[in-house]
């Protein structure tokens, strides 16, 4: 059955045909280069994995985007596999993994996580994500079926779970932060997360140092107002 009438809506029909052709081209393109893509990905991972646990640790302390990406690519597949094995979805895996990354990062900053002889950082990360997922399933046992033998009692890493920041908890701040204008968000991210200096920020925004400093002050005052008004 055709959705359009050839005679009266000729142009719509052409548009419709073009869409089909585009679909087929993309599909053909992807199947053909599937293997090539795998090779490229493998090469990229090989290049990325020149990190040691020490350099990862330092990179996380300095909020280096490359390091976050490396850890993400290396460990997300393992966590996804585990979460899916225990009945979670792709999105569940993404949430848990990102919460786990944030927990690891917070624990490194607070000193609660120390590099240990014989325990790889990636093992630790995957383990805390697994524990967290088990915990979540236990609390929502009406949604997920947990086999008794699969459930491991959290032991050494239990303290991580206490300081765990939930996606939902962070969501309130996410909305508050979004109420700031783009410019304020950009400025605050650069200063507090990317650790750029005020001089670098001023140059990037095309303003003077003193103005940049004053804008930072005012953006923080506004953020404070938003947060306090909704507390």
């Amino acid at each position, binding site marked *: 059955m055709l*959705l359009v009438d050839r005679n009266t809506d000729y142009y719509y029909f052409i548009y419709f045909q073009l869409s089909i052709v*585009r679909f087929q081209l993309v599909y053909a393109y992807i199947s053909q280069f599937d293997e090539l893509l795998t090779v490229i990905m493998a090469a990229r991972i090989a290049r990325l994995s020149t990190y040691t646990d020490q350099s990862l640790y330092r990179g996380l302390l300095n909020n280096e985007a490359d390091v976050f990406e490396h850890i993400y690519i290396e460990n*997300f597949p393992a966590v996804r596999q585990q979460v899916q094995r225990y009945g979670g979805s792709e999105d569940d895996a993404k949430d848990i993994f990102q919460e786990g990354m944030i927990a690891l990062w917070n624990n490194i900053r607070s000193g609660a996580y120390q590099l240990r002889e014989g325990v790889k950082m990636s093992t630790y990360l995957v383990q805390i994500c697994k524990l967290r997922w088990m915990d979540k399933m236990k609390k929502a046992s009406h949604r997920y079926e947990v086999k008794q033998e699969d459930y491991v009692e959290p032991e050494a890493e239990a303290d991580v779970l206490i300081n765990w920041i939930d996606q939902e908890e962070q969501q309130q*701040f996410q909305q508050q932060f979004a109420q700031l204008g783009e410019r304020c968000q950009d400025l605050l991210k650069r200063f507090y997360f990317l650790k750029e200096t005020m001089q670098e920020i001023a140059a990037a925004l095309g303003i003077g140092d*003193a103005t940049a400093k004053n*804008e930072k002050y005012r953006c923080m005052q506004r953020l404070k107002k938003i947060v306090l008004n909704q507390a």
Partner: protein
Amino acid sequence: MDEKLFEKMEDYIHGNLSVAEREQFETEMATDEQLRQEVELHRQLISSVETESLRQLLDQIHEKNFEAETKIVAMPRRRSYFPMAIAASVALLILAGWWVFNLQTSSPESVYAAYFTPAEGLPTTLGYSTNTDFAEGMVSYKLEEYAEALEYWQPLLEADPTNDTLNYYVGVTSLADEQSDSAIDYLTTVVNSEQSSFRTSAQWYLALSYLKSDQREQAKSLLKDLANRDNPYQSQSSEILQKIEDR
């Protein structure tokens, strides 16, 4: 809280104070409960900003490395007509949307919305400027806090009602703040002062103010003048004229 105390807290939290300064600040905190709470709140805000930045970064990383993968896996193996039906509906929707959009753009209010962007602010260097209130207002203006900018500028304008720079910025800010009637008053003053370097820009924003308040004839005469001489708004002016003439 003033900016000086703010910077002191920042330096304290980032560990940039000298030993003596830090000890003094800690003594102050020990006796001043309110200060202690301010510092604690500030620390929490910074931590939330950092966590939020990281969350956004992780989302980007995920999208870049794992979203595309999901799409490839989800590609249909058999040829199904369902995606094509969707593509066709989307195409129809786009065409319909485009048609509706075209119809709408000819009302003066929507022409205004399509063409209005606030004017570039002037550079401000706080602390060096002799007129701090003007500079403060300019910072607010650049941060798109229009009501705040007007609070800084209104008293200055009352003291100096013919100043073209003030009239121009208060006019543009009023327009950005959706007060097109006051914008018309201020901008008219600038347009009438022959010497002003803001005159052409003021004429453009005055035309937009008229469009916003649906006074089409006044807008048209200003735009015709702009379209007929060499200036940065020339091509945009003729575009708008065409759109409102079409109706």
